[in-house]
């Protein structure tokens, strides 16, 4: 990190306590300039708290937060060059859409006429020009969402904070807004810190993702890293769908751990630090990385019986019972090739794992 190009936000060992409840436990992370950064985690894990500390609505119990290299603790919210899209939008109900968007511009010292003109341009950008003179209550949820976005972007903040901005929208609108947000971020070059509890949304939109749970940072990385190399049980379980299996390690052989399941099925996967022979650990394997066949494809094919096929549109999810072992989930794409690997319930099958698909997890 050079002085000329510091991180947009740096959170350094920040702790947040409410009374004797610790909402955030020593969080450290850096958010780069122009980045689309996502805080992802289940409800109550402290995402909003972290965002509010950056915006200045909550003070930092310990540690510090830097904005482009400058410490911002002590700076009141109205002096921080950071804008927020609130979860419930928080549009001013007695002001028109145009005046809502013009408010921040005016507060930054622009004349009323100038502010309105720029606000009009912002409304054009989010395609709401024809609603400029309406009151927020006369707009649909999706339109209100875009007004909130225009209002927060209008004063050209250095960092835009978005607290679950899409959670109140229906699926189709949400997908459209995801793309729109991504475009807006690229066009404006503003650093976005986006909060969501929806892992799919996080994977689609983000340059980098910070996965949080119970006030702790679990993993930080880009979408692929988070999805394919979850660092622990929590991340593996929270991101996407996965089979988490209890295994015992038999031996480590040239970087590969040879393990077996309860029922005796043998599995091989890349070894990780701290794993030695004789340990009981967990193994995570994504359902789409498993293939069903009638005969063993490889020497690791596991004997199983099909229990149920569930049609989910693009895919078919199959539940199979491993012989003397746990139930696992297999996902097959709904295509001509995929459909050759679908079997009637009760059929004896073999479950095969793609090479390198499984991952060991210690906790």
């Amino acid at each position, binding site marked *: 990190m050079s002085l000329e190009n510091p991180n947009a936000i740096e959170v350094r060992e920040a702790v947040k306590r409410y009374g004797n409840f610790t909402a955030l436990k020593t969080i450290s992370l850096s958010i780069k300039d122009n980045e689309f950064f996502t805080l992802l985690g289940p409800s109550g894990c402290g995402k909003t708290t972290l965002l509010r500390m950056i915006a*200045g609505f909550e003070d930092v119990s310990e540690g510090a937060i830097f904005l482009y290299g400058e410490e911002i603790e002590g700076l009141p919210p*109205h002096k921080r060059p950071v*804008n927020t899209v609130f979860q419930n939008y*928080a549009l001013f109900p007695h002001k028109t859409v145009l005046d809502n968007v013009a*408010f921040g511009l005016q507060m930054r010292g622009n004349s009323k006429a100038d502010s309105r003109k720029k606000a009009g341009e912002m409304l054009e950008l989010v395609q709401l020009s024809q609603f400029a003179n309406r*009151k927020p209550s006369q707009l649909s949820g999706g339109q209100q969402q875009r007004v909130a976005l225009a*209002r927060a972007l209008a004063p050209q903040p250095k960092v835009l904070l978005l607290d679950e901005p899409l959670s109140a929208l229906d699926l189709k609108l949400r997908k459209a807004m995801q793309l729109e947000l991504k475009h807006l971020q690229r066009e404006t070059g503003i650093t976005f810190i986006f909060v969501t509890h929806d892992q799919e949304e996080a994977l689609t939109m983000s340059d980098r993702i910070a996965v949080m749970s119970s006030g702790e940072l679990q993993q930080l990385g880009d979408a692929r890293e988070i999805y394919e190399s979850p660092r622990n049980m929590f991340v593996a379980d929270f991101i996407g769908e996965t089979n988490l299996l209890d295994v015992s390690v038999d031996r480590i052989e040239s970087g590969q751990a040879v393990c077996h399941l309860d029922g005796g099925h043998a599995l091989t996967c890349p070894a990780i630090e701290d794993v030695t022979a004789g340990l009981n650990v967990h193994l995570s394997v994504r359902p789409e990385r498993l293939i069903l066949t009638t005969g063993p494809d490889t020497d690791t094919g596991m004997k199983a019986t099909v229990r149920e096929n569930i049609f989910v549109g693009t895919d078919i999810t199959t539940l199979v019972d491993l012989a003397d072992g746990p139930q696992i989930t297999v996902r097959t794409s709904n295509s001509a090739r995929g459909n050759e690997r679908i079997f009637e319930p009760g059929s004896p099958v073999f479950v095969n794992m793609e090479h390198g698909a499984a991952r060991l997890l210690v906790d």
Partner: protein
Amino acid sequence: MAGGATSGGNAVTDTYKEARNWLLLPAWVTLSFLVLAPVLLMLVYSFLTKEFRGGVIWEFSLAAYDQFFFDRGLFGDDPAQIEWTYIAIFWRSIWQAGAATLLSLAIGFPTAYFIATRPEKQRVIWVFLITIPYWVNLLIRTVSMRFLLRDEGPLNSFFMATGLVDGPVHMINTNFAVQVGLFYSYLPFMVLPIYAAVERYNFTLSEAAADLYANKWITLRHIVLPAVKPGVIAGCILVFVPSLGSFLAPDLLGGAKNFMIGSLIEEQFKGNAGNWPFGAAASMILLTMVLIILVIYARAQARSDKEAG
């Protein structure tokens, strides 16, 4: 079968309507006896002829209104001129009530805001504390206020003991004393509606304003106030209207010079010296004035609602 169900549904609706009418009956009876009847009685009395030892003679007369608005000399045979005495009293009353309302607003708004921003459990206690003095009778409170404001009262003793002033500050029997008395009489009527409005206010809006670079004052003026305006207006009406007709505070704290409408009306019905039709006429004029103020407010409110969409 379907037909039976439909007619059954109607029967239920009818019964419901009927029940509602019956349930509303007590309210209607109470309202008619306690509001409509007295006002009508007052209206009728204001057009009757006065009896010299109080009471009325049942004979139509405009004398009461004539006396209020016109001066016809000592013997009533000079050419009619505008009578300023009563209009001046009315004007002074409006002024006093207005000043008391502003004072209540200045103290009541921050108080209400303070209470509404306490943690939820504390709010009840604060509201309770605010209302405690009002468990004591208004007369006793006003007399105590008189005692407090006297030249040799505790307030002045305190001022002089601290060396703030050399001699006593004369407060009793002034307009100021009346305003303080009215303010003290009706303060909760200002605090409670504003409190209710601020409590309903969504404070995320204030955060949004701060997020958009507005300081505290601008946020209060442009975001909070418009949102709690109905509560503020309700509070102002609830203080202004009873202040206008009040007679305890002007009588006990204002002395003879600071007469208000309430005292004027009160005198007309007291003892043998009164003039019932005149008192009734003054009451009707007061009532009309209050109604006009309320209508103006309702119009303004309707207009701003329309603007708001």
